[in-house]
C-alpha cells in the first residue's frame, strides 16, 4: 500500500503556490526595458535577477533587478554566473534587505531554455519567481506575467518542472508620485512646478465635479437610467464633507489663512533682510 502511494504522479507543493502573488515595482519594468534596449547585437532576449523580499502574507515583493549577460544556443544556456554574484554582492552592500526572489526574461511566456535557468535560480533561492515581459508587443500588447515552478515528480524522482502562472500586481504607487505625464511620453521639456501642478489639479477636479453635476441632472430629468451604485457613491462623497456651521467654518479657514499670511510676510521680510545684509557685507570697504 505504502509502495503504491509513493509511485503516484504528484505535483509539488501546490498549497504554497496557491496564495502566491507577485508585486512588481515599476522600476523593475523600467530597468528591464532599458536593458532590452541596450542588449547586445545578436541577443534575442535579456535575462536577469530579481531582487526583493517575500512579505509575511506570501506576496513576493519585487523591488529591484539587474541584468545578467548570457549566451543562448539551440538548447543550451550559458549564464555569466560570476557576473551575477559580483552584482548581487554590490546590491546587497547598498540594501541588505533585498535578496534574490527570482529572475526575469523578456519575451512572451516560457521557452525551452527557461527550465535550465529556473533550475539555477532554484539553487540560489527556494521557489523563485519567473517574470516575463513581452517587449516585442507580439500579441499587440505588452504582457507581463509571473510564474513559479511546480515540481512534477514520480515517486521520489523529479520528472519535470511545470511553470504555473501567478497573479501580478502592477500597482504603481511610486510612478504615480512622479506623474504619468512624465513617464508616459518620450520627452518632457520641463518638470511641473508647484503652482502648475496645482492648476492642472484644479482643472481636473472641476471637470470631475462638472461630470457629476451633469450626471445628476441627466438622471433627474430622466435622460439617463439611474444607477443605484453611482447614486450611493455620490451621496457618500457628499456626506463625507464635515458638517460645520458657517461661523465655525469661517473661523477655521480664516485662522489658517492668517497663519499662512504671517508665514509669507515673515519669509519676505527675511528675504529683504538678506539682500540688505549682503549689500552691507560686501560693500563694507576694507582699508
Amino acid at each position: 500500500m505504502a509502495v503504491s502511494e509513493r509511485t503516484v504522479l504528484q505535483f509539488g507543493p501546490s498549497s504554497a503556490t496557491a496564495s502566491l502573488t507577485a508585486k512588481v515595482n515599476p522600476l523593475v519594468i523600467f530597468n528591464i526595458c532599458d536593458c532590452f534596449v541596450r542588449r547586445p547585437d545578436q541577443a534575442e532576449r535579456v535575462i536577469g535577477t530579481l531582487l526583493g523580499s517575500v512579505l509575511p502574507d506570501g506576496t513576493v515583493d519585487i523591488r529591484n533587478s539587474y541584468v545578467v549577460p548570457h549566451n543562448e544556443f539551440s538548447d543550451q544556456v550559458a549564464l555569466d554566473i560570476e557576473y551575477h554574484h559580483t552584482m548581487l554582492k554590490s546590491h546587497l552592500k547598498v540594501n541588505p534587505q533585498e535578496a534574490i526572489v527570482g529572475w526575469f526574461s523578456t519575451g512572451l511566456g516560457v521557452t525551452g531554455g527557461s527550465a535550465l535557468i529556473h533550475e539555477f535560480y532554484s539553487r540560489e533561492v527556494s521557489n523563485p519567481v519567473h517574470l516575463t515581459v513581452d517587449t516585442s508587443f507580439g500579441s499587440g500588447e505588452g504582457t507581463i506575467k509571473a510564474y513559479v515552478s511546480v515540481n512534477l515528480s514520480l515517486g521520489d524522482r523529479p520528472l519535470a518542472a511545470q511553470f504555473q502562472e501567478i497573479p501580478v500586481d502592477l500597482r504603481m504607487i511610486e510612478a504615480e508620485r512622479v506623474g504619468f505625464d512624465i513617464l508616459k511620453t518620450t520627452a518632457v521639456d520641463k518638470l511641473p512646478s508647484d503652482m502648475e501642478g496645482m492648476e492642472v489639479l484644479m482643472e481636473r477636479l472641476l471637470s470631475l465635479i462638472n461630470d457629476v453635476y451633469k450626471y445628476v441632472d441627466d438622471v433627474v430629468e430622466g435622460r439617463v437610467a439611474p444607477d443605484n451604485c453611482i447614486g450611493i457613491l455620490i451621496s457618500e462623497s457628499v456626506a463625507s464633507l464635515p458638517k460645520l456651521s458657517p461661523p465655525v467654518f469661517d473661523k477655521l479657514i480664516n485662522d489658517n489663512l492668517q497663519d499662512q499670511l504671517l508665514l509669507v510676510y515673515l519669509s519676505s521680510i527675511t528675504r529683504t533682510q538678506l539682500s540688505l545684509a549682503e549689500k552691507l557685507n560686501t560693500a563694507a570697504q576694507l582699508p
Partner: protein
Amino acid sequence: MANTMARSFLQAVATEEVATPLRVVQIEGLVILKIIKHCKEFSPALVTGQLLGLDVGSVLEVTNCFPFPIQEEDEEIEADGANYQLEMMRCLREVNVDNNTVGWYQSTMLGCFQTVELIETFMNYQENIRRCVCIIYDPSRSNQGALALKALKLSDSFMDLYRNNNFTGEKLREKNLSWVDIFEEIPIKVSNSALISAFMTELEPDTPVTQGDYDRLQLSTNPFLERNMEFLIECMDDLSMEQQKFQFFYRSQSRQQAQQQAWLQKRRDENKARKAAGEEPLPEEDPANPIFKPIPEPPRLESFLITNRIANYCNQINGVTGQSFNRLYLTKALHDN
C-alpha cells in the same frame, strides 16, 4: 594639404575646447525612479549615488545611475566603497550601460543641501570630469505631490575663486559675486525610450485622479511648515553668529588702525626730536611690532551658504503657502456649494 588638414583638425580641437555652456540636463525616467526609490527607502538618512550618462553638446544626458552604500567613518570601509564603485562601473559597462560619470545625486531634508561638503565633493568631481551636475531629491517634499528634483552645478566664477582660495571680501567685490551666484540650477528634461512609453500607456490607462493629486490636496501642511520655520530660525542664528564675527573683525581692524596711527605719530615726533639733535631718523615701519600684523579675515563662504539656505527655506515657505491658499479657497468654495 595635409598640413592644412592637420591645422584645421587642430583648430577643430581648439574650438571644441571652448565648450558650450551646459543648458539642459536630460534624465531618463528610469533614473528618476531609481533615485526616488533609493532616497525614499533610506529616508530620513541622507544617501548618495552616482550618475552615469553622456555629455552631448549643451545637453547632459543622464541615462543610468547606481546607489552608494551608506558611508561610515572608517578607512577600510572607504577603500571598500571605492572598490564597490569600480566593480559596479565594470559590471554596468558589460551590459552596455554608458559608463561615463556625469555627476552624483543625493537626498536632502527640506533642502538644506548647501554645505561646504557639497562644494568640496563638487570640486573633486570637477577635477576629473569637465561637466558634472548634482541632482538633489527631497523625499519630504515629495509627500506633498511635488516632484522635488533639482539639478545643480557650481558657477564657473565661483569655482575659480574657490580653487584659488581667494574667498576674501575684496575678490568677491572684484568679481561681483554674491550668494546667488554660487549655485546654478539647470533645467531638467525627462526622456523615456519608446518601449517604456508604450508599456506605461499599456499598463496605466488614463486615470482622472492620481496619488499625486491626493497628496496635493492634503490640507495639513503645518508640520512641514513648522519644521521649515525651525530650520529657518536655526539658520538665522547661524547667520547672526557669522555677522558678529564680521563685526568683531571690523572693530578690531579699526582699533588696530588707530593703534598704528598713534604709533606712527609717536615715531614721527621722536624722529623730529632726533633730527633736532642731529641723529639718524628711525624707520617709519616696524614689521616686528604686533600691531602691524594683519588680522585674518573671517571666511565668507559659510555665511554665503547660510544665506543660500535661508533663501531656499523662504522659497519653500512661499511655495507651500501659495499652494495652501489655493487649497483653502478651494475648500471654502466646495463648502459654500
